[in-house]
């Protein structure tokens, strides 16, 4: 379970202010934000890299402030940015994550096969296709065996079959009781994977909708509702 309670960022522009989100186990919450800054701050807070904030960020009911190790252990951040060492071998990454895998041997085997990891083991990162690279990244975070995920726009710009596969994985994760905070700016993809969708503007949560309701709304209706909240 992920809880963000009355979160304020100090000395930051744009600030995140009075952000309240609670994501239950088995739920995917999509937070839509037009800018990258607020999203970066959120990821940094969950990674324990940004500690200068007011309010509380809880994972499985425990505040990560002052217990940054817990944040790292109980939650995992996934981003598709490719600023990774191009000469690193996939095998080494798998070995590193495998050592740390907090999942059963069967689950581990399943992930390795599902994401075709062994076939790419000898490749260096710069030799990977984008789809393979994202699959490997996704597999690596799954190997960590956490129940809480903060994912940033992972399916953006990818082919349709990848998006479908990704949605399937998210569904499976929800069924397994995982909590997912999905950070994106894709208003069409949000109701596809999320159970609830929040709209963040200038650091404030302006609107929150159930995905089922959002799916039924036209873009025009959505826009007017957003304007009304604004």
């Amino acid at each position, binding site marked *: 379970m992920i809880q963000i309670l009355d979160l304020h960022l100090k000395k930051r522009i744009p600030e995140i202010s009075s952000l309240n989100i609670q994501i239950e186990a088995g739920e995917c919450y999509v937070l839509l934000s037009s800018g990258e800054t607020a999203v*970066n701050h959120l990821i940094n807070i969950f*990674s324990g*890299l940004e500690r200068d904030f007011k309010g509380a960020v809880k994972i499985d009911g425990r505040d990560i402030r002052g217990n940054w190790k817990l944040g*790292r252990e109980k939650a995992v951040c996934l981003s598709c940015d490719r600023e990774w*060492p191009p*000469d690193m071998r996939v095998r*080494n990454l798998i070995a590193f*994550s495998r050592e740390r895998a907090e999942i059963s041997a069967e689950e581990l085997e399943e992930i390795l096969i599902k994401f075709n990891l062994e076939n790419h083991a000898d490749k260096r990162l710069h030799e990977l296709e984008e789809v393979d690279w994202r699959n490997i990244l996704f597999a690596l975070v799954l190997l*960590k065996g956490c129940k809480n995920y903060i994912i940033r726009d992972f399916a953006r710009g990818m082919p349709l079959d990848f998006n479908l596969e990704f949605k399937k994985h998210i569904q499976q994760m929800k069924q397994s009781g995982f909590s997912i905070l999905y950070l994106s700016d894709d208003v069409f993809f949000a109701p596809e994977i999320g159970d609830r969708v929040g709209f963040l503007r200038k650091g404030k949560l302006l609107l929150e909708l159930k995905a089922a309701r959002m799916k039924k709304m036209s873009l025009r209706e959505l826009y007017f509702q957003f304007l009304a909240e604004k």
Partner: protein
Amino acid sequence: MKTIKDMLVMEISRVLNKKILVILVFITLLSLYFVQTGVNSYKGIIESKVKFLDIEKLKVKQYINYAQYGTYGFRILFIPSPLSAYFINSSTISELTSNVDSGERLNIYNSFKGKTLFEEKAGGFKDFAGIMLLLGSLLVLYLGYEAFIYKDYLRFMTGFLPEGRLFAAIILARLGVLLFFFIFNAGLSLVLLKLNGIGLAGHDIRHLSIFMLVLGLMLVFFFVLGIIAGSFKSSFTGFIMVILSWFLFIFLIPGVVNGVTARKADNITSTYQMELEKLKILMGFEQRALDQRRSVPESREKSESDLKRELIENYWQREVKQIQASEKALERELEKNIRHYQGLSLFFPSTFYLSVGNEISSKGYENFIRFFDYIQALKTGFIRFYINKRYYENFSQVVSYIKSQENLFQARSDLPQGFGNGVVLNLVYITGLFCLAYRRFKRALET
């Protein structure tokens, strides 16, 4: 601990990619080539030593009287330590010879006659120490720069390790690879020396280890500079920083330190001035001798040889001492300038490395001063020997002043003054830079 170990394995495999391996092999081959060049040069000196001793003995046999021996004198050859093979091009002295005679001048020279004209001149990078400084520093700068430029990877890894441990693991892995490489290189060079039949004494081994320690400090310094450069948001700015810091510490600062030392050396009494002073002393003696001869009354009936002995003893007591004092004064001036250079060199890791290498090579300033002292002592002994032989003893054959191998000066590797302070200063720099690098690393992860 296990996580750190795995991280080390991952970093090591990342560092040892094809590109870096090619560079490492290139540096190894180049440094070994230059060690071999140094070995050849050292062996050349050792071989010429035997020839030199024979020729010097033969020269004495050619003299008919001591007046000739006193005029021509004998030469002293500077024999460097075997460690000079590592510093054949970067040490102060490339080759030294001195000529000792009964005259007032003390000659120390580097001959350009014959094959020595084509020998490598000192002050370059074409040796083991120079290659380590020039290419080693560039390599570690790059590896430091490249260690932390992939921010997403680092952010991902902070999910497995706290940032402090991640920082330490990456640094330990990279420094481990680098230091192993440089120690391995030194080991290979020792094998090369052994294959060439050159054995190092305990003293030399100790100084080579000290040199490797200073090399390690210098490389760690450049490595941390690289890390700081890599923490810039723009990788282009970081890259420019790498190039600038390399140029600054390898070329500019050593150039400025040498320049300042050279400017300060302008205040040292020139050899022309000194020769004039000595000539004045000699002419003063000549004048005194003439006056004394004129003033001796006929009645005293002093024999010619007694008069000469009296004069020459007078010369020994007065003029020789004055000439020696002026040589000592010059030596003190030289020493003062050397201390100034060594003091200045302490402040920058690259100049400290150059200064330490210079002295460990046995062809640096400390050995020059020792050589200077040695030939002054020999000259004093030779003048006394010459006076005794020429004015007091009857002789049938000219006997050499050199009894065994006194005309060979065996230099030994040394350390510059303030070495300990230099090491401490380097450690302070490195610690400070590591703290700065860690702060920048944390900031880079946040942005």
